[in-house]
């Protein structure tokens, strides 16, 4: 059933558009192109080596996170018609939308690899840690999707609020700018930013795949145990989200 829903989600996403699936590749690429022209060429934020790939990878991870939470948020209300007619485990709906975002991420990662090859980025041993960080981002997104989809059943304002939060979070996360830019102003601010589990995971993923120049939680605090704080927040989010969802999902059919 999960399988069918993921397939359906995927088939429907670009239904009727000429380029079809290509859009899921083109969208982050265009965002990357814009960001690169503005921040890489005009403003010149790029003090990290392989900045274009570094930027692209960050954008692709963020796009995945945004897609999984946004679609997860709308998933329960969007499938209200089915929920009111058949009884089945509701978490499958949230799971299927986030998994279809995950499939998208996998396709996009392929582009990252192509760009890495073009820019001559050396693959390092640290790449073996990459799946862990991707899993972390996925689980944070899943936890939030559980939480938000439940909230959205009660308050339809949730989607608008989340849109604003995501916009702020995009700039609060070191995606387009290297963390050093913040550290130049205030190290404390940089440390606070890195307590955000998404920032931590994206930076660690970049460290493992693109360049060891990436500043991660461990290098910022000079202590690798500090990574447990954002990790703890991530796990907490997942647990709270899942429990809140579980408690309320019994009444989705009545309230959606």
């Amino acid at each position: 059933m999960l399988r069918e829903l993921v397939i359906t989600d995927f088939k429907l996403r670009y239904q009727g558009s000429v380029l079809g699936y290509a859009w899921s590749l083109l969208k982050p690429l265009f965002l990357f192109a814009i960001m690169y022209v503005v921040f890489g060429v005009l403003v010149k934020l790029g003090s990290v080596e392989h900045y274009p790939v570094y930027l692209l990878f960050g954008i692709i991870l963020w796009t995945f996170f945004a897609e999984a939470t946004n679609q997860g948020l709308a998933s329960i209300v969007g499938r209200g018609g089915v929920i009111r007619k058949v009884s089945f485990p509701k978490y499958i709906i949230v799971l299927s939308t986030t998994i279809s975002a995950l499939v998208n991420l996998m396709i996009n990662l392929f582009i990252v690899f192509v760009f890495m090859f073009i820019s001559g980025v050396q693959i390092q041993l640290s790449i073996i840690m990459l799946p862990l960080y991707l899993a972390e981002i996925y689980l944070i997104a899943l936890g939030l999707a559980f939480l938000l989809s439940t909230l959205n059943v009660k308050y339809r304002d949730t989607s608008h609020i989340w849109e604003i939060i995501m916009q702020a979070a995009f700039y609060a996360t070191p995606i387009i700018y290297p963390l050093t830019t913040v550290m130049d102003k205030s190290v404390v601010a940089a440390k606070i930013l890195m307590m955000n589990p998404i920032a931590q995971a994206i930076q660690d993923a970049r460290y493992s795949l693109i360049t060891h120049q990436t500043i991660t939680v461990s290098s910022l605090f000079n202590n690798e145990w500090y990574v447990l704080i954002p990790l703890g927040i991530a796990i907490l989010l997942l647990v709270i989200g899942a429990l809140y969802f579980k408690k309320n999902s019994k009444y989705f059919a009545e309230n959606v």
Partner: protein
Amino acid sequence: MMKHYKEKAVIVKGVYKTFRLPHEQHSGIKQRIINVFKGIKGYETLKILNNISFEIEKGEFFGIVGRNGSGKSTLLKLLAEIYIPDTGLIKINGSLTPFIELGVGFNPELTGRENVFLNGALLGFSKTEMDLMFDQIVEFAELENFMDQKLKNYSSGMQVRLAFSIAIRANTPVLLVDEVLAVGDSEFQRKCYIEFRRMKEEGRTIIFVTHDMSAVEKFCDRVLVLKDGKIAGIYNPSKAAAIYQRMNISDDQPEDASIAIENWGTGDVVLDDVKIYEGNSKHDTDNIVSQGNDVSFDIKFINKNQPKDIVVGLAFKDIYGVNLSGPNSLKIKLNSSSNVIYKVPKLAFVPGVYTLTVAIFDKNAEIEYFHSEEAMKFNVINEGQEQYGKVNLFGQWNQS
């Protein structure tokens, strides 16, 4: 018949269900905050189901009837585990497939094939089960050449056929059927009936929710009648149909019980009332009469402008609108009278619901003074064996 039911298929015990009805558009934070300040709860609770308890035997064809708003759909959704009861217990022995709606999750942008798999998945079938059933489904729906077309290019009849073909594949011991028969043409309904008969013969438990009393009388073993969220009783089908009919009449049209919607005519004469009596008595029958009895239809009218030589014409129609008999009073003169009685010896109609159309004309049938398409509804009952066709000829079987 009761003896080969061994186990209970469904047990419902002391079930209550209330709903919160929001007063205003409540799904926003703003309203919620305003309500908190005003001290308004923002909703009122509505008791939908009130202490519902019943049991369904294995292999039983169990009907649930009730007027709109009586809690039928809520009960059904509780049985299907879509809603959960406030208190009380619902136990289903074995798995249950709900057909609350045909084609759940059908998406117009997907092909027929993709929709079959999606719908199957939602009904709880695995991919391998669906692979095995796919050909049968397509064959039954007679849509072999359309499976790779998008559903939006299907006619509505084709969609219903496809949905129904998937639904009847469900092999669960308990089936929940809600008004499925209300859609589709008569050919489709016939197909549904054949499938129900087959399922019944296979000994599966079927819970059937409907407004169609003729279907109830055709299939059901026992019928639960719901009224305002409470169980009015569990009866045999013909009794239930009669009670349901009485509920409809008494609740719907408290005063003008027999004179209903579609009336037209010059108005020189108007219909006042129609009553049905059984035998020679003048007792009100509540519009429920027994097959085989002598029945009189007493048509009362008000001759406002005193036209001469009026003729009363009747049409007895079944629920499909088929005119079964159309007598008229041409042979007698109706001048100063205010009523006419049509006496039927040994009422032959098979059990079911019938409507009576009354028309009042001049003697040449040129001017229609009054016409009521549905002057009244009445119910024919017979607590005997199942009957087929439209009328009972009361013939005798003899060996020569």
